[in-house]
């Protein structure tokens, strides 16, 4: 590649970012302190406009949700009354992001080929191809991708595709002060995440589990894994995540098949009736 960007990850960590290898995020919510540096770094690097109009009243979360112009979102869950069955009050924080699913429902739904899988196994919307049909929006089981009303194109996290090409890790991961957001090769990340879960269990945090690694909640219904996966400490719904998302394309055959069968049945009846008694 002819990029002359400093390959910081290689020079600092001795760990080059290579095309052809699967990369992703491991977001360890037990380390998140809710500083929102990831949100700011993402907006800055990707030059995304601010969109906040008012206080939400939802703890410290005034961002509310991921959108076409917000690609990192820190959720704040206050469990102060032990309602979730915990003796001690606790404060859950999670930096949410596009899951870069494998296979990806948005990519499967995209009729123009604008959404594609990159050489880093991330899922990116090509802005010069998208025609704003909006089908990826209801396809996404996590409510991530959205069409921007201003430019009429679909937008979401690109896993900092431009930075990866230049050998730098995504802006949110680089800025995260507690390493709650970890970027790296997926196989290494998954091993590290399992290790971390075991360590937490040993320390008595037995609620900890992984969301989105193969054979876990989040990686269900035909979605084999989420390239951006999470370590959570309560039900996925608490963090606004579905427990068992499904691949929408699985429903094409039953819906289209049943519809064609019903149509054929009615057509047979119609053929009998439309003959008008002629033999």
């Amino acid at each position, binding site marked *: 590649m002819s990029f002359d960007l400093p390959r910081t990850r290689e020079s600092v960590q001795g760990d080059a970012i290579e095309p052809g290898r699967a990369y992703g995020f491991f977001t360890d919510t037990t380390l998140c302190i809710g500083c929102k540096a990831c949100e700011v770094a993402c907006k800055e690097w990707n030059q995304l406009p601010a969109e906040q109009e008012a206080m939400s009243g939802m703890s410290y979360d005034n961002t509310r949700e991921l959108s076409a112009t917000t690609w990192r979102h820190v959720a704040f869950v206050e469990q102060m009354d032990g309602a979730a069955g915990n003796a001690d009050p606790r404060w859950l924080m999670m930096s949410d992001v596009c899951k870069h699913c494998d296979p990806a429902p948005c990519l499967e739904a995209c009729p123009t080929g604008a959404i594609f899988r990159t050489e880093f196994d991330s899922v990116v919307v090509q802005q010069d191809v998208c025609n*704003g049909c*909006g089908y990826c929006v209801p396809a996404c089981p996590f409510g991530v991708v959205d069409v921007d009303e201003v430019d009429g194109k679909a937008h979401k996290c690109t896993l900092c595709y431009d930075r990866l090409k230049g050998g730098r890790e995504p802006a949110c991961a680089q800025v995260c002060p507690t390493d709650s957001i970890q970027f790296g090769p997926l196989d290494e990340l998954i091993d590290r995440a399992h290790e971390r879960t075991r360590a937490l269990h040993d320390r008595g945090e037995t609620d900890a589990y992984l969301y989105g690694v193969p054979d876990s909640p989040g990686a269900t219904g035909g979605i084999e894994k989420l390239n951006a996966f999470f370590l959570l400490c309560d039900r996925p719904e608490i963090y606004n995540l579905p427990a068992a998302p499904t691949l929408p394309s699985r429903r094409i055959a039953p819906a289209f098949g049943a519809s064609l069968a019903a149509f054929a049945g009615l057509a047979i009846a119609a053929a009998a009736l439309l003959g008008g008694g002629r033999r």
Partner: protein
Amino acid sequence: MTRQDRHTLRDWRGETYYGQQALKYPHWDWKVSGYIAVAGTAGAAQALATLGSLRDPEGLRAARRGARLMALAGSTAGAAMLIADLKTPQRFHNMLRILRPTSPMSFGTYIFGAFGGASLFSAFAEGPAVGRRHLLRWLGKAAQLVSGFSGAGVATYTAALVSATSNPYWAAAPRSLGGQFAGVAVAMGAAALALWERLGGRDATARRFEKVAAIATLAHVGASTAVNKRLKECGVSQPIEHSKPQRRLKASSLIIAGAAPLVGYALSAALGGRAGRNAAMAGSCAALAGGMLMRHGLLEAGKAAREQPESGFALAQPMKGDDDGH
């Protein structure tokens, strides 16, 4: 390890994240529900007329002509609505860059394209220029066959278009929804042709199409009941139950698309004569209007589901949402 993780997960007690939406909802508006209704009607009409012409070419000559014109009008209007609904409409041709079997939006474009092309040809073959030129008339018949087949596809693929999403209201009952879409499309196509025949003074053939419309209406009502039952089972009926306009839209579309045509056709058979003729035409108009309302109600209900994030979470519980349960 991971198996154990799943076991330690406590049961979901209906919690949400401050009631925030967990899914994004489509930006589609009346143009998409209008497309589904208009293209479905045109496709079904062309399929019915093709079938009818095979059984009774002489008696249904006028109906075939009507269906060819409806197919042309429907595919033109449908294409216009689809393009107008894009947020970057000048790039509509990007739909033709790829063919993707996992995307009903993609393969549906090709089904609809085939229908539009064949319909254009079949309508052209009805023109005066064709006259006695056998080759052109033969080509017109071939185009009608292609148009009839692809018309059936246009009337039905839209069930997959809405089912193959993560919207709980659309995704919970793919099979029953498929039956519902086929039923309402055939009812609307037959009603449109029945109206065409009535307006042309061909009451005998109109009655045949009215019978088809009545049967399809029954199928539509049956499938709609199955959809509602399945939604309840999955716990995703809230957007309808909680919103008054939604409830009204749904009730009125079921009455107009279901009860009104059946009553109209029954009255027509009982009364006969001029009054019977009017009752039948009113029934056909109700089938068309009710079908449009039903398509629009489905779109709006899907958008309204955003107010109830628990609907999406309920469908996305393990062992649910994967299957229709039939």
